[in-house]
């Protein structure tokens, strides 16, 4: 019994030593992060909606770009965070990196969904269709599936350590596969040469459009980081709840 206590104490030390510092640091960072992201997104929205010109080809619909492009950027960014954190988790066995990867997935998935949705809302007036199987949209859709698979894997495996390792492997295999998938989709698409594909991005972006785009991109990225921290904090607490419950069940055996 004494032996078991020592082991569980060591485990607790390993699991908490770093989260303790993380929790303190993130608690201090969060308020400024929320404020800053709100501020930047607010400014971005002002320029996006009021103080930028309509596109000479796409008219007012170009304003959808200020949501769509940052969302698509965060879709990629989220997967990168997930993949890097997963790699770090596998190599360094640092529990925080596993939590980081797990926390990034739903945020990335949400922004991927948003990118698909706004892309669809942009495509309808521009191409006359809600959905076009062009290379870009198709690969973003597949990225969305990769996210869902990753989340499903976490949800299915009960034991956190095992789930973390399996999910990390999946994230990394996915990261390697993304370029291959992307290439194959482009190949498939040029093979079929659909008649009605337009390029989404114009030739060059006017500076007046670049400002709101950059502001929205930076602001939403800050929001992404804030959300990531909140979710990681929730994961740390979830682990503690789990440990406390295990302790409760164990202490009950003696009673």
């Amino acid at each position, binding site marked *: 019994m004494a032996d078991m206590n020592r082991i569980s104490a060591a485990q607790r030390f390993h699991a908490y030593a770093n989260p303790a510092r993380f929790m303190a640091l993130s608690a201090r960072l969060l308020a400024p992060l929320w404020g800053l992201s709100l501020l930047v997104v607010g400014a971005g929205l002002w320029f996006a909606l009021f103080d930028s010109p309509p596109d000479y080809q796409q008219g007012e619909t170009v304003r959808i770009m200020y949501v769509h492009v940052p969302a698509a950027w965060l879709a990629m960014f989220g997967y990168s965070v997930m993949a890097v954190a997963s790699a770090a988790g596998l190599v360094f066995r640092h529990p925080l990196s596993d939590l980081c990867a797990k926390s990034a997935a739903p945020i990335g998935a949400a922004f991927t969904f948003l990118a698909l949705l706004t892309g669809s809302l942009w495509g309808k007036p521009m191409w006359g269709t809600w959905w076009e199987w062009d290379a870009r949209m198709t690969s973003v859709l597949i990225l969305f599936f990769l996210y869902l698979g990753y989340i499903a894997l976490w949800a299915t495996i009960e034991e956190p350590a095992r789930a973390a390792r399996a999910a990390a492997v999946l994230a990394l295999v996915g990261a390697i596969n993304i370029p291959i998938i992307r290439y194959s989709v482009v190949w498939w698409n040029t093979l079929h040469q659909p008649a009605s594909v337009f390029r989404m991005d114009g030739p060059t972006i006017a500076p007046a459009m670049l400002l709101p785009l950059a502001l929205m991109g930076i602001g939403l990225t800050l929001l992404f980081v804030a959300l990531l921290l909140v979710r990681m904090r929730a994961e740390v607490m979830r682990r503690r709840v789990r440990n406390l*419950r295990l302790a409760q069940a164990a202490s009950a055996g003696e*009673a």
Partner: protein
Amino acid sequence: MTTSELSLSVRDLACERGGRLVFEGLSFSLGHSEALVLTGPNGAGKSSLLRQLAGLLDVTQGEIELSGGDPERTIGEQAHYVGHLDALKPSMSVVETIEFWRSFLGSIPQGAETALEALGLAHLADLPVAYLSAGQRRRLSLARLIAVPRPIWLLDEPTVALDAASVARLVALMKGHLGHGGMIVAATHLDLGLDGARQLRLGAGVAV
């Protein structure tokens, strides 16, 4: 619970599993407030007999009759069966588990606490079953006996995974059940110390 004149009689019972005759010609009867302890080597048919009594296994030959119970209901509906499997869902909490079985088996939603207290699980009520140890799971499985009043208890190795204190607790509950006119058929290797419990030794085909 009107179990005063309850009696169970088994006549010339046979059991066949996978083409093999496990036992035949088994007869015994059991009255209210009586316990029957099944013993015998592995494969003698202790579990099969319990499942036949619970209506979970077909009776190929012979008959099982309950008199004095609720004529509207089958024996299975008046009995508790605690087998090797614990019928627990890891994602449900301890109290949810008991409340479900109360609603399902007895149509009585409230009052799971008594059963949990009786088996020393009250302080774990809100814990998901996934966190329980083997012994705690077994106790939760046994808590059904108290949560839903039924006159016949069919217990298949109920003491597996239980520590001495929990076995004592279970024996006390069994004595209480017999004291209220209940009936117990249990397969066990352990001497439970039930006074006046009758023994049925399977395997030799002879009731002792």
